[in-house]
């Protein structure tokens, strides 16, 4: 256990965090101009519903509010004081035309958190050509630069909505009072108040959409005027989990760019549904339909909360007319899409895996542990190795669902969009920059078991510690697989299997899935 000095510090942080659990007072909230957009009659009701997701927080000058690379799940509204936004220098190795931000599991060149030697043992989700969202405030910040946010400004909302790591450090420039609105609250506000939504959307449109569009390969070399035009006309739409966005066969009339969440792309094949692929942040769909002037060849369905940028047919056509290079790129993307569909039709296996992965949620995982039951001798070496790597306690159980000859044990899938992180009061559960692993810091965890309850697959287990709480019950700490991030050889489960039956793959890399899991 930790030493005396650490304990005091922990206690202090713990208490600091505890104040975050205190919902904001209704009276204080009503005063804020942020909610001015909500109609008076409904305001109190809405605020009453949402207030448990909103907390006031006080920071002294120099305190760090958000750290670059930290996981963001809240929007912050500056009530009083000023905060400064700092952007560190980028790593020398990365030079790309698109604006890039460090962090994020989809960073094209970022290496895994585990050491390079172990990269073979971790299944990385790696889809090239994706765009990375930025959570920059309005002003362009050059690397190494700094901007200041005054009262009335909001920051962090994009990161929260798109579930990406914070891309710049925010620090209190003076004594600061913030209102923290956590993601569920944000969503409820968006749904409850059109004005609020519009407020957020406008900010997005002004600050970020341009950069976002720039990041899409289609619009890379387009002139600023076009970007501005598109920006003005683009719609920002949101969908609930399971909602159908477009139906196959319906006339195609828009181009969609995914801002956040997962979208399932499927087509009917005979009497069954064929899952073709999925779209996530930065992917787009509909360009083929618009070019070929066809009805929708597939169905788009939201797998979870999804935010999309929608560009109508006319706007799109105007852009194409003005910029032939865009059209070329569009053809390339179309061909790729057709190939994908053809491939899916020809190899039902990959489609089957895709569907299985989407139905069960494995698609979310950056690194899923699979055990080949046809060669596994049930010797438990994987579990023993895990226990040895974690001071005698294994982090997974060799039980779970089975697909064909593969067992999916209850080892954390390292989701791209971890729901376990949403409700953590202390921030013990984190994901560092550019890494896969979602880690739980045992010294910060207070054992509230929110994460364990939230994980749909039960991959987080509460483990009793030696110490007891004041009321006599033992203190529990949440534990889960952390990809053995501190271990030079990489994940112990894969390394310790004497028959090579344990593999770690990501279902986002369908080629690798099909070749490994055949």
């Amino acid at each position, binding site marked *: 256990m930790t030493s005396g000095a650490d304990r005091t510090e922990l206690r202090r942080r713990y208490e600091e965090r505890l104040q975050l659990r205190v919902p904001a007072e209704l009276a204080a909230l009503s005063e804020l101009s942020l909610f001015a957009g909500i109609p008076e009659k409904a305001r109190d009701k809405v605020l009453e519903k949402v207030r448990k997701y909103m907390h006031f927080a006080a920071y002294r000058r120099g305190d760090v509010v958000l750290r670059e690379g930290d996981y963001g799940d809240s929007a912050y509204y500056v009530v009083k004081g000023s905060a400064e936004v700092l952007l560190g220098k980028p790593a020398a190795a990365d030079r790309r035309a698109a604006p890039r931000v460090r962090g994020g599991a989809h960073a094209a060149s970022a290496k895994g958190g585990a050491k390079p030697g172990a990269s073979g043992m971790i299944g990385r989700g790696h889809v090239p050509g994706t765009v990375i969202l930025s959570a920059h405030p309005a002003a362009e910040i050059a690397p190494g630069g700094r901007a200041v946010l005054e009262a009335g400004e909001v920051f962090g909302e994009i990161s929260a909505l798109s579930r990406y790591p914070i891309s710049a450090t925010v620090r209190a420039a003076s004594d600061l009072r913030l209102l923290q609105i956590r993601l569920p609250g944000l969503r409820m506000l968006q749904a409850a108040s059109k004005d609020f939504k519009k407020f957020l959307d406008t900010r997005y449109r002004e600050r970020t959409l341009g950069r976002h569009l720039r990041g899409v390969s289609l619009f890379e070399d387009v002139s600023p005027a076009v970007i501005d035009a598109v920006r003005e006309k683009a719609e920002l739409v949101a969908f609930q989990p399971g909602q159908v966005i477009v139906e196959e066969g319906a006339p195609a009339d828009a181009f969609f760019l995914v801002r956040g969440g997962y979208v399932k792309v499927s087509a009917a094949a005979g009497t069954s549904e064929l899952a073709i692929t999925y779209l996530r942040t930065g992917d787009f769909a509909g360009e083929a339909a618009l070019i070929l002037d066809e009805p929708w060849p597939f169905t788009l369905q939201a797998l979870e909360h999804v935010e999309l940028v929608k560009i109508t047919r006319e706007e799109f056509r105007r852009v194409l007319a003005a910029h032939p290079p865009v059209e070329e790129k569009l053809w390339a993307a179309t061909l790729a899409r057709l190939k994908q569909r053809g491939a899916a039709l020809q190899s039902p296996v990959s489609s089957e895996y895709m569907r299985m992965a989407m139905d069960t949620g494995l698609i979310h995982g950056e690194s899923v542990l699979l055990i080949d039951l046809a*060669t596994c001798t049930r010797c438990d070496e994987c579990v023993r190795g895990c226990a040895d790597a974690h001071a005698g306690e294994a982090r997974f159980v060799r*039980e779970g669902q089975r697909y064909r000859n593969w067992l999916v044990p209850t080892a954390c899938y390292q989701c791209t969009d971890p729901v376990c992180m949403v409700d953590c009061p202390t921030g013990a559960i984190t994901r560092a920059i550019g890494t896969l692993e979602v880690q739980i810091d045992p010294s910060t965890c207070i054992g509230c078991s929110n994460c364990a309850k939230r994980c749909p697959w039960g991959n987080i287990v509460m483990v009793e510690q030696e110490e007891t709480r004041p009321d006599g019950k033992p203190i529990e700490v949440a534990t889960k697989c952390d990809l053995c991030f501190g271990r*030079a050889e990489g994940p112990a489960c894969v390394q310790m299997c004497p028959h090579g039956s344990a593999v770690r793959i990501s279902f986002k890399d369908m080629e690798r899935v099909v070749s490994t899991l055949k």
Partner: protein
Amino acid sequence: MSLAEVLRPKVPRNLHATVAASFVALALFLFVSWRWAWSPKRGLGLAFGIAAALVYVLEMLYPARRSRARPLGTALRYLQAHVYLGAFAFVCVVIHSGLRFPGGTLGWLLLLLSLWTTASGLFGVWLQKWIPAAMAGGLQVEALYERIPELVEGLVAEADSLAAEGSDALDRFYRQEVRDRLGSLSPSWGYLFDVRAGREAALDPFRRMRAYVPQEDKERLEDLASLYTDKLELDAQLRLQGVLRRWLWIHVPPAGLLMGLVVVHVFAWVWY
């Protein structure tokens, strides 16, 4: 799984290397023993003996795969090294003796123990190839060996509640014919020959009952049948996983005995 599939090596390169090395060793032995007198105490005969002893010591390092990753890296490589080096070491032992039967008690014991250890190890390799394949191919259920009794209890509880919901006929049938067998583990040895042995016969009562149960209970009957099937598969798992665990008893303790005698053998060579 056909025999060819079962015997296919995981890393064919290792098999080829071992076979090639054995042939080279034998050729060396034949050439040297044709020209010069072969003695296990001198020259190449001694070299082969020392090589075999050293390899046996290395084989003992297999348990060390847990604590250190170097130099081989993954446990897969350690096991491959263990199996193939072990086979090669036996070839070295036979060559060391000059393809003659040993003279004294100690020599005989050493030869027999080497043979037994190598043979039992290869037997274990064979087991580890076909049993998992049989389980994966023939069974759907997958369970931890130590949890099987607990899981069966869970199945019984589920069946109990299911039967309680149903009609009296179902309940009676359940209590009289099903419950006892559902609750008691019976890992029969027949599962080693057919992973689904006896299933048809065991599920027969359920099929017969279909005619006698009211309509709304038909689904419950199906569920009971599937629960029972789960239990049968757990029995098979118990037996097969048990064999996969327990075969080491015929391999590791004799290997320990062998190592002790090897030390005595080395002592005798040094002392005399």
